[in-house]
């Protein structure tokens, strides 16, 4: 290289390491998760929240949110929204239920069909957003309506009701819906998805492209990042995440339900934002989404153990979201001002 002088990297001491941790996007989320868990563990002591069963209960509820929150976080970091995931969760469960009961297809084939439909939905979302330049908020809102309408129509014509039951056993049942004590296998899926997303975002060049695309699409494109491909890929990943959750829920509840996934639309975004993902893109981490989902799960399940009216959970989550956003923006400013 030209004019290269030896560069001595800064020595990394203990204090330096601590500072670096504070500057990470998920630091606020780590604090939030610890504080909230401590709050409920202490506030409900004696009620079984910290027992094995209590832990299984919040982890199960967190896992399904987390499986979807992780790809949603990547999509947000890439600068886009997807409101159609909830409908995709519902449609997946309908495809599985109708496929196995009405058409008597093997469950494996039904799952394959759901995966193909999910990939197609992601591709359409991605292509439409990228090619028209419309906000993905609008594009995926339209997609959400389209999917809801289709699954409702399918369920009604085929079975005559928006809820379709299904029954499976064997390999796929244990793959997606088995348990160890009270712990669902979905927890393992959640960890696997989180590990994969962390690897991609933090370690691969695709991860660098996602951060750059969300940070400044124009600048990223000028630097040679295939921003369209990045965004389309993220839409497909999110949609496949929705299919995975749909499959898990269908096999767990032994039914398909058109409107089952609705809560995921905003809860995944809330989990991501609590987790330190910047809503306008370009900043955040997969670990943050994991911590955000954990916080969310601990609150929504922990509230049962307090013995309070569960209606308060919403208020609690609202305040928490607000506090987390303030904390995250504080830590981000700190990272930008050293």
């Amino acid at each position: 290289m030209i004019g290269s002088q030896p560069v001595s990297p800064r020595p990394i001491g203990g204090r330096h390491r601590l500072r670096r941790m504070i500057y990470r996007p998920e630091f606020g989320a780590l604090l939030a998760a610890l504080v909230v868990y401590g709050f409920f563990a202490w506030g409900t002591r004696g009620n079984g929240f910290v027992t094995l069963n209590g832990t299984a209960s919040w982890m199960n509820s967190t896992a399904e949110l987390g499986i979807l929150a992780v790809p949603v976080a990547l999509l947000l970091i890439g600068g886009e929204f997807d409101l159609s995931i909830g409908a995709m969760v519902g449609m997946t469960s309908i495809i599985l239920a109708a496929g196995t009961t009405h058409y008597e297809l093997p469950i494996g084939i039904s799952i394959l069909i759901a995966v193909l439909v999910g990939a197609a939905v992601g591709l359409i979302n991605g292509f439409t957003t990228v090619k028209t330049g419309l906000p993905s908020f609008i594009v995926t809102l339209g997609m959400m309506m389209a999917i809801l309408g289709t699954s409702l129509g399918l369920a009604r014509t085929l079975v005559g009701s928006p809820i379709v039951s299904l029954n499976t056993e064997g390999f796929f049942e244990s793959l997606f819906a088995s348990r160890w004590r009270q712990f669902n296998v979905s927890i393992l899926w959640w960890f696997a998805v989180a590990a994969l997303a962390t690897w991609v975002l933090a370690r691969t060049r695709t991860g660098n492209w996602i951060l750059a695309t969300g940070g400044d699409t124009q600048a990223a494109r000028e630097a040679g990042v295939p921003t369209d491909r990045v965004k389309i890929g993220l839409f497909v990943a999110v949609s496949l995440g929705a299919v995975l959750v749909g499959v898990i829920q269908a096999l767990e509840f032994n039914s398909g339900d058109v409107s089952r996934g609705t809560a995921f639309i905003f809860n995944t975004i809330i989990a991501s934002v609590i987790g330190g993902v910047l809503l306008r893109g370009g900043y955040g981490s997969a670990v943050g989404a994991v911590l955000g989902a954990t916080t969310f799960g601990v609150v929504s399940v922990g509230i049962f153990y307090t013995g309070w009216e569960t209606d308060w959970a919403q208020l609690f989550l609202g305040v928490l979201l607000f506090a987390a956003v303030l904390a995250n923006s504080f830590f981000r400013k700190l990272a930008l001002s050293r």
Partner: protein
Amino acid sequence: MTEHQASEHVHEVLPPILELQSITKRFDNVLALHDVSMQINPGEVHCLLGDNGAGKSTLIKIFSGVHQQTSGNMCLEGASISFANPREARDRGIATVHQGTGVLPLMSVARNFFVGSEPTRGKGVLRRMDMAEARRVSLEQIQALGIRRVEDADQLVGTLSGGERQALAISRALYFGARVLILDEPTAALGVREAQTVLKLIRRVRHRGVAVVLVTHNAYHALAVGDRFTILIHGEAADSFVQGERTREEVLNLMAGGEELEDLQLELEEIDAEFTPSA
């Protein structure tokens, strides 16, 4: 000064790397450039001066493949050439750093440096970004431009000053093979100290034998680092000269379109007169 003259002597023998011959550019009804000729030499800073709307941006956009000329000829190392898009220009070693510098404030120095051209290691599914290499090279390249305060490659670029961001953008362009570096108003948004940092950067780049095209409104900055100057007025090359041939006053007057500075003085006096209480 002796160093300057010595290097100038060397430049005389090098052929121009880029040459414009009678370039005209028309947008519908607007004649943005008319019959402009200029030469860009390696190891020289060529300043492009002119008022708003004079055609500076249009000219560098022809260099960098954003626009194509309506008529006239462009030569790269003596061979006639035309770039269909910015990518082609970049592949031939012509890099542009815009005022926004195209850096990403919420990403680290190392990640920014390699955006779009990440070094990787490992194969197949284990193929990953070589972060150690990215950290090492980015610091080395930025520090080689004299910016020693950047010493942590994991630092977010949002924490860098304006001059340091320019250094990042410029060192990145050079590392990826730029032979012609086009800087569009690099000092415009900067304070005095930061502007000086950028001028020093430009001088270092020049000593590496890179051809620099510096677009600026600021005659002081131009005269401080420029070797050769072209002044555009209403799309025409009104004057072109080398370092030392024009005084600061002459340059300022030329940029303002000749007599206008003196006119301004008269008009200001008229305004003062309006506000003087008359008996």
